[in-house]
């Protein structure tokens, strides 16, 4: 980790980083407790300047805000330490509802199967360590099972990223039971991708995540994170290339993940 990144805390606190830097710094924030504390303080400090520029809004704003909220359902609270969803909800900087959704929008992660519209917009919130997971989540397009019905197209079902892997022409599916947990790994050599769907995963302690690994002759390489909902169900497309891997593993790691697995896998699925 470059020590220079520490010095970005001030600029980050006032949204003065460009997008690349913002992403890099958020990665750093995830692992740097002192930067987290500093960002919190410096943000609060910067907000003191708001008192210099207070300005009464036009009355029409109040009317349109109150009319607007009447038509929007507040998101439910997070009911568990669902890191990825938490990160999505806390990611600052969105342009609200009208954001054109990608073909496969980031579906809500965990616990909300079928409820897709709320998760389609990334919501700005308190900046904190886990925000970088948003990028991870968006990249992996974590999706809860079921057909995702986006708010952007009322009558066209959109395949989730997981389904795209599962329904690839050359997809192979392996199912494995481990205790209460059932895992289904779908992989496609042509897409060089795999997707893992789980049910009955044990819930995690605060500050823990499920990390995915491609395991091959060269050892384990991180393949992103798996977010299971309160019901222990979840799915994810693994990050990176399937090539060279003959197993997929899941371990419990501290928030932010590890370079290499630090615990015994809770699950290993062998590719057929």
């Amino acid at each position: 980790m470059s020590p220079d990144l520490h010095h970005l805390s001030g600029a980050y606190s006032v949204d003065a980083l460009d997008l690349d830097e913002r992403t890099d710094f958020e990665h750093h924030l995830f692992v740097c407790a002192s930067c987290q504390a500093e960002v919190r303080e410096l943000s609060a400090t910067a907000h003191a300047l708001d008192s210099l520029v207070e300005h009464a809004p036009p009355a029409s704003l109040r009317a349109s805000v109150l009319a607007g909220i009447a038509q929007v359902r507040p998101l439910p609270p997070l009911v568990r330490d669902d890191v990825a969803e938490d990160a999505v909800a806390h990611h600052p900087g969105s342009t609200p509802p009208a954001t054109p959704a990608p073909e496969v929008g980031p579906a809500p992660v965990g616990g909300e199967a079928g409820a897709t519209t709320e998760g389609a917009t990334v919501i700005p919130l308190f900046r904190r360590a886990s925000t970088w997971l948003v990028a991870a989540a968006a990249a992996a397009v974590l999706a809860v099972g079921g057909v995702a019905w986006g708010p952007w197209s009322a009558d066209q079902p959109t395949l989730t990223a997981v389904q795209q892997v599962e329904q690839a022409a050359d997809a192979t599916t392996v199912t494995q039971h481990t205790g209460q947990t059932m895992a289904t790994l779908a992989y496609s050599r042509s897409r060089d991708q795999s997707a893992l769907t789980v049910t009955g995963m044990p819930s995690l302690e605060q500050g823990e995540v499920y990390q995915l690994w491609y395991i091959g002759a060269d050892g384990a390489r991180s393949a992103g994170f798996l977010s299971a909902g309160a019901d222990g169900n979840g799915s994810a497309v693994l990050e990176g290339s399937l090539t060279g891997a003959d197993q997929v593993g899941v371990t419990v790691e501290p928030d932010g993940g590890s370079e290499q697995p630090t615990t015994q896998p809770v699950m290993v699925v062998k590719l057929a």
Partner: protein
Amino acid sequence: MMDRMPAASSGPPTPAPGGAAAAAPDLAELLRRSARGDEHAFARLYDATSRRIYGLVLRIVRDPAMSEEVSQEVYLDVWRTSARFDATKGSALSWLMTIAHRAAVDRVRSSEASRRRDDAHAASTHDVAFDGTAEAAHISLESQRVRKALETLTEAQRSAVELAYLGGYTHTEVARLLDLPLGTAKTRIRDGLIRLRDTLGVPA
């Protein structure tokens, strides 16, 4: 970095930075009620914060119509995500203003806001302390305190903080606007904010 951590800073959630109005309603409680769909609570939240949010957005975006639009989006986001507010991670006001600031900045950066850029330099650099748009009746104790604190910064620190936060510029743009060597503006911003923090005693 550890030396930057105030010894007693890891305490519980603290009051709003600089304190909003003395009799300010409990914003965190209003957010909690909003999360349960209480539109009246949200209306009170709006009334308690709209000058601040709209003022900041207007300051950055400049165009009143666009500012109104951004402010509306901010409030809708706040309403929708109110259940996700976590009081252990900072004050409600700080949370709201973080959303508003990011939304305003993202808007000006995405909407080729060249019109604003053209004339913004002089305005943003020099007129904060005497902002013509600030109504005299609202020269609050808080803003007096903030102005005093700003005076403790070096000129370069103060300009860098103001251009970044109230101008919505990136540190690279700030460096250019202030003729600073590339890469030094971010240090000025951070040093200035730390100085402000220590002067204002902004809670962690």
